[in-house]
């Protein structure tokens, strides 16, 4: 990092406190209003453009999704789902990408100090030069977002345009969205605005409209307004209650202190056993007797 950050909430694989002097920063959030998205993919283009990403131009796989999946060079993709609700066909379009969890599983799993950081404003950012390519972040993520680049074996994902945000601009996808379906601001403001949208949707017959800000990961800094907030799975399998896998929590949680105790105990046992009992010698004179 060429510029010094003093507003880091969490830093991967770092047991001590990161620099936090600027913690008064307001939490930011990107709000994606699925109900006003037209699926134009301008956000995908803007993302590639701003971040200087040039993914390979893929093939049409029979549906609108293109690229077909997130990759190290496609940090956001539109997911198109067809479903029947209330006897009508619905075409649900969701902009997929990093959710910037308040409790990021990627950061929890990462073994490399400072390869993943969470800023005070809530943005979770990969510092790719510290990435060792182990893929632990992929196992930590409840949303299946990080991708390892085949070219350099480093993990990448949406940065929420942390470079733009740090100088007071909105992310590139927000800037470019032609319908205003993507908004950016303080998390508080975005929740307020989302409520307006939800109320509006309810008057139009979407009784289960709501905000997607899953608490299982402490809330997210990318939120959705969904017409069917009771069935987020409709939106290309968006998880209803995403959480860091309990397996990852065991691995990165209780196993550490337990194994520390175990290893320390075996070393200390050996040391004090030797001090207490002394070496176990086979007496030479016994051999002499026999001889």
């Amino acid at each position: 990092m060429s510029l010094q950050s003093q507003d880091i909430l969490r830093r991967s694989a770092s047991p001590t406190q990161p620099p936090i002097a600027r913690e008064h920063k307001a939490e930011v959030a990107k709000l994606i209003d699925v109900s006003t998205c037209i699926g134009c993919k301008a956000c995908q283009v803007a993302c590639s453009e701003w971040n200087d990403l040039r993914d390979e131009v893929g093939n049409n796989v029979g549906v609108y999704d293109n690229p077909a999946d997130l990759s190290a060079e496609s940090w956001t993709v539109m997911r198109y789902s067809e479903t029947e609700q209330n006897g009508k066909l619905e075409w649900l379009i969701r902009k997929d990408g990093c959710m910037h969890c308040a409790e990021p599983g990627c950061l929890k799993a990462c073994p490399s100090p400072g390869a993943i950081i969470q800023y005070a404003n809530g943005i979770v950012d990969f510092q790719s030069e510290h990435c060792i390519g182990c893929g632990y972040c992929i196992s930590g993520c409840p949303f299946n977002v990080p991708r390892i680049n085949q070219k350099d074996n480093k993990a990448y994902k949406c940065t929420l345009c942390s470079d733009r945000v740090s100088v007071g601009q909105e992310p590139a996808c927000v800037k470019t969205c032609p319908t205003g379906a993507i908004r950016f601001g303080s998390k508080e403001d975005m929740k307020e605005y989302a409520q307006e949208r939800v109320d509006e949707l309810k008057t139009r017959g979407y009784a289960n409209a709501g905000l997607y800000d899953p608490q299982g990961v402490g809330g997210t800094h990318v939120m959705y307004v969904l017409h069917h907030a009771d069935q987020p799975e409709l939106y290309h399998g968006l998880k209803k209650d995403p959480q860091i896998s309990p397996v990852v929590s065991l691995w990165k949680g209780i196993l550490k202190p337990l194994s520390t105790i175990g290893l320390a105990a075996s070393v200390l046992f050996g040391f004090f056993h030797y001090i207490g009992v002394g070496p176990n010698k086979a007496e030479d004179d016994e051999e002499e007797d026999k001889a």
Partner: protein
Amino acid sequence: MSKEKLIKRYSAAERINHWIVAVCFVLLAISGLAFFYPAFFWLTGVFGTPQLARIVHPFVGVLMFLGFARQFFRYWHHNFIDKEDIKWMKSVKTVLAGHEVGDIGKYNGGQKGMFWMMTGCLLVLICTGVIIWRPYFAYYFPIELIRVALLLHAWSALALIAGIIVHVYAAIWVRGTIRAMVEGVVTHAWAKKHHPRWYREMTGDKNKS
């Protein structure tokens, strides 16, 4: 002083095999502990850079597995647990006080237990290690399986490290043992005291002392 009376315990091939596995283990433990404990991350410097440590670790792992597999097929038939071993295990406190228990063959109950524990750990480590190996194999496995593999890999590695600490300490504590794995020989006194049945087999001595 009369010339020492020695018994051959390990051939040169066995010793080289053992030390290849041992060196692999040390490299793997250093890099593995670095990936597990943030406070030990600096140990990746042993390999040059952290990413190099991550790249090298699985290849060394395969080498260790192959080396251990050779050892397994050398020693498995010496490691069936018998009545004398049970007696040994039940009196482990006496053993730890420095008094031998039971008519022990080539290996005692502790060594046999260690052998099977190492075998189990190595099997878990190689299987889970392949599953989590990026960028080559992890893509072929579902994420739920990778998560479980990561947990089991760490768990069995830690069990193995604790086991090896005991293994190394036992070799230091029981004087004359390290020589068996360095020079290949032990003294008659050592064999008679720690492995009496093996001593009789090796010397043809019929007397139970």
